[in-house]
């Protein structure tokens, strides 16, 4: 941190905001050993999927629902070949293309649902934890009630209810997943808020005459929010599975709206019996790899950021470094 740099910028500059973020993530760069490997491997996997999603139009040989090229229909269930690296499925579409476009769908849904569940769950948790009282009791009751349902069932019910009004697109799937994850963020944020609320610096802020919302925004939020990234990454992994499960069960994204791995796996079930492995294996593998990548990042993050799980990095000590000033003793 550059110490001497008298500037006349506004007190809260963007650089300093980033500084705060850098401090939060500082332990990540200090991670060592197993944790470091986990983090880097997970990040590599996740990043490749993100790149695939971003550059889908470039990478995918065909569109996700293309079943013919140059006026010629693709063969049904064709084994992997030079034309179709991962073969084609029962609808004659290119499996590779479906996986590439599917990456886009999966990440879109996950991003939208994370965005919603964080922007709803975190503020509710902050308010509930900071103010306590009746508000807290009601919110906890509602959230716990949501928690009680098996999450897949809940997602299905919501997807089903929304299907009439919004249609079975990305938004529906995202909302269905959002509702499932709001209680998670709410709980984590609320519990941390309750403990941060008791910190002297929060009382100090009250003593300064700060309004409750100022206290929450400037004193509580930043000390609570660092628990969100690990949770969000782990959730993302979970959300992929939920989305795939919805798709598999037929409540997810409609095949006309976009490619979705869960749906593909479902269609591939009958193929497997007749020895056609490529329609099922590749989407399945994609699900596994993305989930593993995200989980590794999430676990790595929580191990480095969470002080309870955090281990002091072990550094070897060289006792042989006897410098001349020790010669005098004894």
């Amino acid at each position, binding site marked *: 941190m550059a110490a001497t740099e008298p500037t006349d910028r506004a007190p809260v500059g963007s650089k300093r905001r980033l500084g705060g973020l850098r401090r939060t993530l500082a332990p990540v760069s200090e991670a060592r050993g197993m944790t470091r490997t986990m983090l880097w491997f997970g990040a590599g996997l996740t990043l490749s999927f993100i790149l695939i999603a971003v550059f889908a139009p470039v990478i995918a040989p065909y569109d996700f629902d293309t079943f013919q090229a140059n006026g010629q229909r693709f063969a049904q269930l064709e084994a992997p070949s030079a034309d179709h690296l991962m073969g084609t499925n029962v609808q004659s579409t290119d499996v590779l293309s479906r996986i590439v476009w599917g990456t886009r769908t999966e990440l879109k849904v996950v991003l939208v649902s994370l965005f919603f569940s964080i922007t709803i769950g975190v503020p509710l948790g902050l308010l509930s934890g900071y103010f306590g009282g009746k508000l807290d009791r009601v919110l906890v009751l509602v959230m716990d009630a949501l928690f009680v349902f098996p999450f897949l069932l809940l997602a299905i019910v919501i997807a089903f209810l929304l299907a009439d009004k919004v249609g079975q697109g990305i938004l529906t799937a995202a909302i269905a997943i959002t509702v499932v994850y709001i209680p998670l963020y709410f709980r984590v944020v609320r519990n941390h808020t309750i403990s941060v609320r008791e910190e002297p610096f929060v009382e100090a802020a009250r003593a300064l005459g700060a309004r409750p919302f100022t206290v929450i925004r400037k004193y509580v939020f930043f000390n609570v929010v660092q628990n969100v990234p690990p949770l969000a990454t782990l959730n993302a992994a979970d959300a992929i599975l939920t989305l795939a499960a919805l798709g598999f069960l037929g409540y997810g994204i409609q095949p006309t709206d976009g490619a979705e791995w869960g749906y593909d796996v479902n269609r591939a079930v009958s193929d497997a019996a007749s020895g056609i492995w490529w329609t099922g294996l590749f989407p399945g593998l994609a699900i596994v790899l993305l989930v593993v990548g995200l989980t590794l990042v999430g676990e790595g993050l929580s191990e480095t950021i969470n002080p309870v799980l955090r281990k002091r990095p072990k550094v070897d000590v*060289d006792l042989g470094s006897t410098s001349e000033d020790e010669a005098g003793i004894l």
Partner: protein
Amino acid sequence: MSVRALRVYYGTLRGTVRAVDGVSLDIGAGEVLGLVGESGCGKSTLGRGILGLLPEGAASDGEVLYNGQNLVTMSDKELRGLRGPELGLIFQEPMTRLNPLMRIEEHFAETLKQHEPSLDNREVRRRSLETLGRMGIPPTRFRQYPHEFSGGMRQRIMIALALVLRPKLLIADEPTTSLDVIVEAQILRILADLREDFGTALLLITHNLGIVAEACDRVAVMYAGQIVEEGSARQVFSEPAHPYTRELLRSTISLDTTKLHSIPGAPPNLIAPPSGCRFHPRCPDAMHVCVTKAPIEQALDGSRRVLCWLHGPAGEVPDDGWSQLERQQIAVAEEA
């Protein structure tokens, strides 16, 4: 127990912390030795280092001789056998050391049976109650849980738990910091009486000079990982030989304080301690030699020793080393 050239280093990402750097110390049977220093001077590490209770990532060498055995090179298993019956340890926060789900009775039974498996239940009970009684814990409360006791009582129980095995040496690391002043004095009274009551030697680690003065026979003053002065409490407090001891005594606020005094600067970080004498940047008496050469331990009258060039050896000081060091103004920013 005698400690010779003990070094304990910690590895951190920023570098190696020399928490204990060449410490020699003797604790006689039945003696109360006070180890005093500011926070971060390595006194707690020294206490744990003596017992071989070091966290992962720490390395130590030197000698800790107890009954002719060197504890530093001893295996963990052998050390565990010594800890308890021979060497005891009392911590700062007693509640964290008592298992909240175990009755006091069970704590004692477990400790005693681990080290003396041949004891029968009656004997366990007799010895526990006797030790507890001397600490002022009534036998009626033997079957209660730790949370039913107050802070001072818990510390008494901890002391009793350490003493029930009749160790020869007890190391007490800031045993009274979380206690009220009257309770603190009660506990200190117990510790100061250990010699008569149990024949146990005590190493009392504290930052409070008052506690050392009142409870200890001898005192060792620690600064930046080294012992800078050692001697009888009476001598050290009435005529401190090391400038640090003198300045520390002057900056202590007691009922007799009429003028505030403080030591300029802050304790050095132990990753890259100052050259020469580690106190020289803050020392009002610093000479040129202090910057360049580490002081050599000098024995003074009686059993005193001091680590300061003011006390020689004169032959080792270069000709131009005696002149007073020019003090540059230390900005408050550099201080604590």
